[in-house]
């Protein structure tokens, strides 16, 4: 009888544990300011190997999650490229992460909008989920130590970039 009770309790605990695990793993907690950004190795969009956000430690990085099928991403791409032209260099870069997208479509998109900043491919969207993205586009500004300084859960434009991102960057960010 005692053994049976122990088994029943263990089964109940296992079921509750599974339910809790399910809830926790479904919960898509968004990266908070001051938290270290996940930086797994991802294939480069131009298929020239792999890359990681870790490679940009020491620089401010604006991580832009996008996809070629996303209409707001088309609107923000020229502004991001312009911002990269103005501020990209030794201390800052935009890094695009093409997410849940066909790599050919992503490559065509980058070419069409003349995007010169580095591009990674997150085909299954796992890296985006680790950041806590709920869609595309989303933007995250990382400090040189890889921690989140600011984020925008949606598209950015020239005004947002100049008001929220530019003031955080070091004055001499345009250096090569």
């Amino acid at each position, binding site marked *: 009888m005692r053994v049976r009770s122990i088994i029943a309790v263990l089964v109940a605990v296992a079921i509750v544990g599974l339910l809790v695990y399910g809830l926790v793993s479904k919960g898509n907690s968004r990266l908070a300011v001051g938290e270290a950004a996940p930086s797994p190795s991802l294939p480069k969009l131009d298929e020239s190997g792999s890359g990681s956000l870790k490679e940009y430690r020491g620089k401010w990085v604006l991580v832009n999650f996008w996809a*070629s*099928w996303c209409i707001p991403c088309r609107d923000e791409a020229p502004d991001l490229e312009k911002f990269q032209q103005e501020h990209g260099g030794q201390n800052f870069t935009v890094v695009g992460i093409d997410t*849940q*997208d*066909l790599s050919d*479509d992503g490559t065509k998109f980058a070419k069409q909008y003349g995007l010169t900043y580095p591009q990674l491919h997150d*085909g*299954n969207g796992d890296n985006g989920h680790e950041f806590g993205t709920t869609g595309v586009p989303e933007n995250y500004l990382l400090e040189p130590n890889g921690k989140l300084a600011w984020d925008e859960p949606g598209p950015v434009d020239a005004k947002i970039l100049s008001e929220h991102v530019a003031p955080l960057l070091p004055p001499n960010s345009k250096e090569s």
Partner: protein
Amino acid sequence: MSPRPGRGTLTTALAVAVALAALLLPAAAGAASALRTELNEIEEEVMCPVCGTLLGLAESPQATREKAFVEKLVKKGESKDEIKDALVAQYGNAVLAEPNGSGFSISAYVVPIVAFIVAAVLLALGVWKWRQASGSEDDDDKSDVDGPSDEDRERLDADLARYDL
């Protein structure tokens, strides 16, 4: 100056054209139908990663691009497995509606089988114990059939005597 074709020649040409059309149209329709069937089959076996539904049910912009990708590969003559591999290369294993049967995904097949076996063993044990318990109860019942003990008989007689029935 070339001679004008006669009525017989025109009729023959027309007959040949009709015969060719009769031969080629069903073949073309069959090929289109086979293509559609294969597309539909694949769309029922892979997911739209953004929508979290089967590709065949999805209407999102991402699903539209994925369908176009599948259609392009079907037209190229690639097999269903090759197309699925190409989709996995683009979107990861989550694009497969069914787990691929290797690595952690194999648990999707193994866990239900193990759970079924465990449940069957527990059920068999339960039935066995229940039958044993009911068997011993039957034995107890049989001992009751022998009738009340002498002590009970005496008490019953005493009670009946008290009521003077």
